[in-house]
């Protein structure tokens, strides 16, 4: 199902949580909503689910206006940040709930429901845990129950709010793969919220970056990482060294640093250079290496420029011995934005 969000506004009191949000989600897409805390990710997701209603704008499902349709009528699967499993029901009852509350001829038979629960438990690799209560499960298992409960009603959209937020790094990684697998197996249009850029870039087909209630950029993980359209996106997605300086005549200057800045208007500006875009270059500017340590296949270098600015450089492992004392570096790529 396609989802269109058209200039949606939402205010809490006098504080705008969403302003003029436009977003098109294609059928079967896996989209990440990425942004810092308080940027309106949850509010946008809840608006799509029908748990929150916008002050202005429209939400369309397959071209049909559902802006004020109730959550119960939208056929969305929602996975809550804290899972919101029904504490007093077993895992199987939790998963069956959405089918069990159906009325009349829409309601599947007991056997059908049991079969569906069985299939879903298998899908998320929880076979045999149907009789447990949520309190008897680990965090990762609860997460899987929440996911299969949302999938049980065969939703046309799956919405997940920070699905892995409360889990440790290893479990996060494996559940990420799992979500991708489940998405590919069911083909359901999926939107998930995260403030972890690595998660968004690794998992999603496209990423929408939110800041202070507005969408800054929508694009594939490569696009938002390599061609950030705004200073915010550049600073938020991926590692970046940030420099405040001046643009004059197509060149950015900050201390000894010179960067090409074609097309940026003169005046104060901000430049971002990714750590891996700094390379050793005899024609560059001098920095003092404070520390170079090898991490897996990479060398991470902490250095200081002549004017005291800290600079982070990422190089290959083989280059580690060359980062000693004072070295000269240059930026092979930079993003410059007028202030």
């Amino acid at each position, binding site marked *: 199902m396609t989802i269109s969000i058209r200039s949606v506004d939402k205010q809490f009191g006098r504080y705008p949580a969403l302003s003029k949000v436009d977003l098109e989600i294609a059928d079967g897409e896996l989209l990440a909503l990425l942004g810092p805390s308080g940027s309106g990710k949850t509010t946008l997701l809840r608006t799509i*689910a029908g748990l929150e209603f916008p002050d202005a704008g429209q939400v369309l499902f397959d071209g049909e206006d559902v802006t004020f349709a109730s959550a119960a009528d939208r056929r969305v699967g929602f996975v809550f940040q804290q899972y919101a499993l029904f504490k007093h029901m077993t895992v199987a009852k939790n998963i069956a709930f959405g089918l069990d*509350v159906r009325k009349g001829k829409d309601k599947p038979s007991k056997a059908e429901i049991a079969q569906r629960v069985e299939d879903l438990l298998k899908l998320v690799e929880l076979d045999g845990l149907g009789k447990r209560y949520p309190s008897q499960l680990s965090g990762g298992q609860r997460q899987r129950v929440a996911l299969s409960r949302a999938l049980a009603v065969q939703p046309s959209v799956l919405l997940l709010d920070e699905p892995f937020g409360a889990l440790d790094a290893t479990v996060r990684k494996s559940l990420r793969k799992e979500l991708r697998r489940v998405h590919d197996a069911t083909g359901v249009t999926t939107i998930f919220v995260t403030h972890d850029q690595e998660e968004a870039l690794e998992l999603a087909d496209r990423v929408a970056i939110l800041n202070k209630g507005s969408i800054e950029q929508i694009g594939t993980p490569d696009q938002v990482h390599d061609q950030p359209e705004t200073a915010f996106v550049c600073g938020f997605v991926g590692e970046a060294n940030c420099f405040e300086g001046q643009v004059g005549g197509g060149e950015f200057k900050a201390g000894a640093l010179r960067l090409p800045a074609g097309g940026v208007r003169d005046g104060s500006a901000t430049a971002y250079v990714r750590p891996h875009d700094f390379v050793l270059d005899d024609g560059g500017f001098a920095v003092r290496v404070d520390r170079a340590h090898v991490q897996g296949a990479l060398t991470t270098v902490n250095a200081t420029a002549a004017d005291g600015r800290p600079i982070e450089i990422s190089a290959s492992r083989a280059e580690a011995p060359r980062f000693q004392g004072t070295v000269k570096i240059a930026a092979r790529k930079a993003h410059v934005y007028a202030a």
Partner: protein
Amino acid sequence: MAAASHRRATEDPLWAKVLVIGTVMAFLALVLILPLAAVFAEALRKGLDAALLAINNADALAAVKLTLITAAIAVPFNAAFGLCASWAIAKHDFKGKPLLITLIDLPFSVSPVVAGLIYVLIFGLQGWFGDYLVDNDIKIIFAVPGIVLATVFVTFPFVARELIPLMQEQGTAEEEAAVSMGASGLTTFWRVTAPNVRWGLMYGVLLCNARAMGEFGAVSVVSGHIRGLTNTMPLHVEILYNEYDFVGAFAVAALLCLLAVVTLVLKTALEIVQPGVRGRGGH
């Protein structure tokens, strides 16, 4: 030395603990246990037979029956109301919510005697509806309906007060999950909200029941003290006592105490079974 190092930072020295706990125990013995023991001692002063005889007569049995009937109406009513009110307050936002919360607390802040007088003022012969009620031969004051009304008023807040903080603490996430899976509001209430508060509800019902059976002030005003007809157990105790029938008075009082003890035992059992329900209602 070793013993001292095992002490937790917040733990007081032994003499302080003994002093504090001892004081509390002595106080409880003086104001709670002693009077309770006295009730039973007085009731049994002329032997068990005399006590049983005092209970096993028409007037006393009528009082027991009326007390049980009153509780049987007031408690379910207040349980249903308390459940609705706390659901509305804890899970929904609407105008006038603070007012509703204040109103629920009203019976706690108004003297029970005043509560009784309010009903006399409204339904009594000289009251607002006095003429209408007389014309239609409806008796409320000095009759069972008045007693039930007064009891309902006084025991109004117990269940709601118990459930509101519980429901607020639980938030609305589970309800939202249910709704997003297509459940209607009513289904959500019965299948998600209510089961989550069932222990708290039982606790509130027990407290409500204890008060409903023991209420004196408000009931006294509206009852009219007609023996065998509008006397509840507490009122009957007073009448017997005023007639110097001490064995009778204390025997009925002892029975009332036993009902209260049963309630307390049930309450304690609940707390053991379900440690989370310990009374949080503010009163």
